[in-house]
């Protein structure tokens, strides 16, 4: 096999529960961008996809609440172990492709009450595997994190909400609710040595956090006519559905799968 690849290097600059910063070197814009696109659109996660409403006497109508429920990030570390419902062997949902969540809240006294993700009861909620709203998972991980629950709607005395949700596996290109990232960004050439952009007043531009300039009076690197964009500084922020480095891994797996599928298709056609 003719080899003309590069060995892209990955270095982690910082990593928290919600964000990863990494340096991708010896790469190319095409690769960095495929990686970014894959993280946003091709990483499978779980999100509420069907809502059966039994009682809704709140001020918000059914569709409105269903839409809000869909956008709630659920912990999806094990999404890879689920089947897409359309590919599953079952007829109408099974534990391999659907997670059921239930919610029943009624306000009995003369106070305003908030219906939040805290009230969602997941049927898949064990010590090993759990698919729950991310705020619930965060609370369990760290007792000091409280009150991050997403408000679904507000109710008053006499109002009630009772519904069943079915969460399914999907990817971001199908619907934004399956996107595991809150923000993905990359930058290259932090000191503008390649002059891919023109600063009329370089001194007025805030310096990049990756700048390698040491001189305070210098605001731009010297022009490098032979340079190419081969080092990328990426920031990946997770919605909480997955740890950020897991998003990166899963994105690369998705890319890999695409390549394998295409290779197999070529083999079949050539045989």
């Amino acid at each position, binding site marked *: 096999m003719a080899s003309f690849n590069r060995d892209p290097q*990955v270095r982690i600059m910082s990593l928290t529960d919600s964000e990863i910063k990494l340096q991708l070197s010896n790469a190319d814009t095409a690769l960095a961008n495929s990686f970014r*696109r894959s993280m946003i659109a091709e990483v499978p996660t779980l999100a509420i996809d069907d809502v059966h409403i039994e009682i809704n006497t709140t001020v918000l109508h059914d569709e409105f609440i269903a839409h809000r429920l869909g956008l709630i990030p659920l912990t999806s570390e094990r999404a890879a172990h689920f089947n897409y419902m359309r590919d599953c062997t079952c007829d109408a949902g099974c534990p391999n492709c659907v997670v059921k969540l239930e919610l029943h809240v009624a306000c009995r006294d003369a106070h305003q009450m908030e219906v939040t993700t805290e009230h969602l009861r997941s049927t898949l909620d064990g010590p090993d595997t759990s698919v729950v709203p991310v705020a619930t998972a965060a609370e369990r991980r760290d007792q000091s994190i409280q009150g991050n629950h997403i408000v679904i709607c507000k109710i008053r005395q006499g109002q009630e909400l009772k519904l069943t949700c079915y969460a399914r596996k999907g990817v971001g290109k199908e619907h934004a609710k399956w996107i595991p990232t809150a923000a993905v960004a990359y930058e290259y050439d932090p000191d503008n040595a390649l002059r891919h952009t023109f600063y009329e007043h370089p001194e007025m531009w805030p310096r990049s956090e990756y700048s390698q300039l040491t001189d305070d009076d210098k605001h731009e690197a010297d022009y490098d006519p032979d340079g190419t964009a081969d080092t990328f500084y990426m920031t990946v922020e997770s919605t909480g559905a997955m740890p950020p480095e897991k998003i990166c891994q899963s994105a*690369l797996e998705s*890319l890999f799968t695409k390549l394998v599928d*295409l290779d197999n298709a070529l083999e079949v056609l050539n045989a």
Partner: protein
Amino acid sequence: MDEPTDFEDPERYKVGDETYARDLEALKILRGKEDPQSATFVIANEDHTLGNSLRWILNRDPRVDFCGYSQPHPSDKLIKLRVQPKPVEEGEEPVDATEVLRDALKNLMQMCDHMSETMQTQARLYRQQQGLSIPAYEAPEEEDMDEEDDDESEVAEDDEEEQQ
């Protein structure tokens, strides 16, 4: 699910949706009469994520004379990838676009694999250095792996064995 769910129409989750064109062939190869080694690959259900990387890696191949791709229309869930290998000199074996593309795919796979591996080791190292907890999914033994994971772990193991 213990009890059957009462979805009104479960079939609607089985058939194609707006994201994937299920009626398209996964891959079609179009060839002209004049230079039979060149080809246009019509790849269904792919977009710039694959197209741009493929074009880049193909253009790095010295055997490739021209390579470009396009997504003809955003509503068509397909891309067209044109690969024209360099015309061969007399006595040489003509290189086919399919062969060139398969090499490109293998190269990209290696790069993906390499990135994935470095990422994993780096993340583990970083967590150790910072005294962060190792997430549950990183736990050494995982029993019920799905097909995708199985394939990849097998590939990884094979590689290690070969190296040894």
